[in-house]
């Protein structure tokens, strides 16, 4: 196990140096992406100076569109067996109908990346964890599959891997719990944080209902939109201070 970890570490270091050199050689200084300014070297720890988050404008989210879901599951190698009750569902579309007015809304729903995540509090092995930059993750090697986090999550955001998994892109494991990682591999991209797969897909569809970015950086579009228009948390009464916010929800 230790050897594997070392190999992984060398591989990561090698890959990051190769990509770093490649990026430096191919991208001219004048056209550096804005995000590279936030780039973090692979060997640097994540920092609480960042708080990664998502913003969703429900008024722009199209009923019936599933692009974010498809993109997320493709990106993360989460395949469906056609049994949604037991399939891993990292992100889902939720249709809301107001019981009084009949007003219909649609929104993508996933791990809300709470600042005070109940899943982390209840985990007996600290497999459920929150990074300093606000991303809530599960360490598959430490998860014993007790599902207490799923009992504690107020959002049904977590899935238990009920069946053997094949075609993994990122590590997954039968008998462990998983959920949206906010595309943490993109956040940790040596070239700088990139949009999550769901946000890219929403933009590609032309709906532009989702934003990803650093909530602590006032210059990001997500921060500016939140400052200008505000944003709601789902189950704000629980005081979890979620990293995922919604606009035009009520």
């Amino acid at each position, binding site marked *: 196990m230790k050897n594997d970890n070392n190999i992984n570490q060398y591989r990561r270091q090698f890959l990051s140096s190769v990509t770093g050199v490649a990026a430096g050689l191919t991208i001219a200084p004048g056209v550096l992406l804005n995000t590279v300014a936030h780039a973090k070297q692979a060997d640097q720890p994540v920092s609480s100076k960042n708080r990664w988050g998502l913003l969703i404008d429900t008024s722009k989210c199209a009923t019936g569109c599933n692009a974010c879901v498809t993109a997320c599951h493709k990106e993360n190698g989460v395949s469906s067996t056609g049994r949604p009750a037991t399939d891993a*569902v990292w992100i889902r579309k939720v249709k*809301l109908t107001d019981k009084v007015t009949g007003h219909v809304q649609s929104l993508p729903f996933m791990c809300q990346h709470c600042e005070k995540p109940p899943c982390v509090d209840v985990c007996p092995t600290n497999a459920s964890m929150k990074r300093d930059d606000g991303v809530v993750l599960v360490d598959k090697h430490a*998860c*014993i*599959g007790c599902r207490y986090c*799923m009992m504690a999550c107020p959002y*049904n955001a977590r899935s238990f*891997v009920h069946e053997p998994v094949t075609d993994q892109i990122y590590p997954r494991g039968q008998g462990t719990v998983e959920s949206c990682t906010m595309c943490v591999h993109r956040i940790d991209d040596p070239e700088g944080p990139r949009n999550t797969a769901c946000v890219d897909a929403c933009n590609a569809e032309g709906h532009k209902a989702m934003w990803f970015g650093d909530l602590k950086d006032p210059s990001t579009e997500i921060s500016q939109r939140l400052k200008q228009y505000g944003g709601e948390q789902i*189950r704000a009464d629980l005081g979890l201070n979620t990293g995922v916010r919604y606009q035009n929800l009520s």
Partner: protein
Amino acid sequence: MKTPRLTELEGRSPQFFLLMGVLLVLIAVGIYSALLMHGEGHIITGMTNRIVWGTPHVFAVFLIIAASGALNVASIASVFGRSIYKPLAPLSMVLSVTILVGGLAILILDLGRPEHLLDVPVTQFFFNTKPEQWSHSVFGWNMILYTGFMAIVIVYLWMTLVKRHNKYAKPIGVFAFVWRLALTTGTGLIFGFLVARPAYDAAILAPMFIVLSFVYGLAFFILVLIPAYSWTGRELGDAMINRLKKLLGIFVASALYFVIVLHLTSSYSAANASGIEQFILFGDNPYSSTFWIGQMLIGTLIPLGLTLLPGFKSRGALIVASIFVIIGGLSQMYVTIIGGQAYPMPMFPGKEVESIINDGGIAPYSASIYEILLGVGGVAIALFLAIFAMNVLRILPESLADKDVDPHYDPAKETAAA
């Protein structure tokens, strides 16, 4: 009152080997079911991403609660000084350990990755010098409470059985009593701290679980004690039977009080804005019928009548009452654990919610045979170990005849009082 001699059971009859054989088969089938669950995945169970704790948890939580309750007889003897129960204290201790082992076995075998358990929590609690990194998990605390309970009770048993250590039995008995209160509180808080789910978020669950433990543990104790005596030809007099019967009745009545307060509070308060009480109590679903028929009628009202009404004098009535209490206990765990998960969480008040995982609807669940076999296997582990212990340890009084238990016991007076 003379102190009855404690001896081991003989356990050489064909019936004994048959019983142990049946229990071993049930254990093997339970373990095989768990192995299948780990090979094929939990897909072969009825559990889903909405009902994440299924029938194994119903059995496991029931047994864990019952385990601490099985220690009652020992606690009453040593902590509260009722010497009549003293001869039965060792059996009570042994049962509390074996029932806990059975419950924990289910819990561990139902984990998705039990092998990860070997290296993770130990490091969290024993080799971590940073208090801020200690687990906040009630589950984590319970791992300490459960293993600690077993260790303390085993020492308690040792102090009780070895004459020269008897003087330590009382203090460690008090310690075990306090520890078991913490253990059941911890088990109740596994649910009580789940703020997101309207069925659980209630501090009363912790004291309620303590009272439930008295009920389940005593019923289990009675169902082991009576056959152990009648099948081996040892005498078990009415003095003991009547006391146990009354005790069971009082415990069932106390549990009923807590159940009423829990549901009244939930019905009356804002917590019921989600409609959880209507769902559990008056819904057109298996949980409501299990509540009224399993938990209330079979598990509470009939045992209350059988134990407290004067008309039921036979020990058959006590056996039926104890079996019904156990059926009621499993029903109560089913309603609490599975019913509580089946009801949707209030994420979007005032809206109808539709999604691929049925966020807004009642989550369906039906137990698979593997779950039931794993649960039954856990019960079999508890019984097998208890019977084995009774055969190798001198823990059973040779006689619990009236003259040995209570020389002043007068059946006529008992009848008149009734």
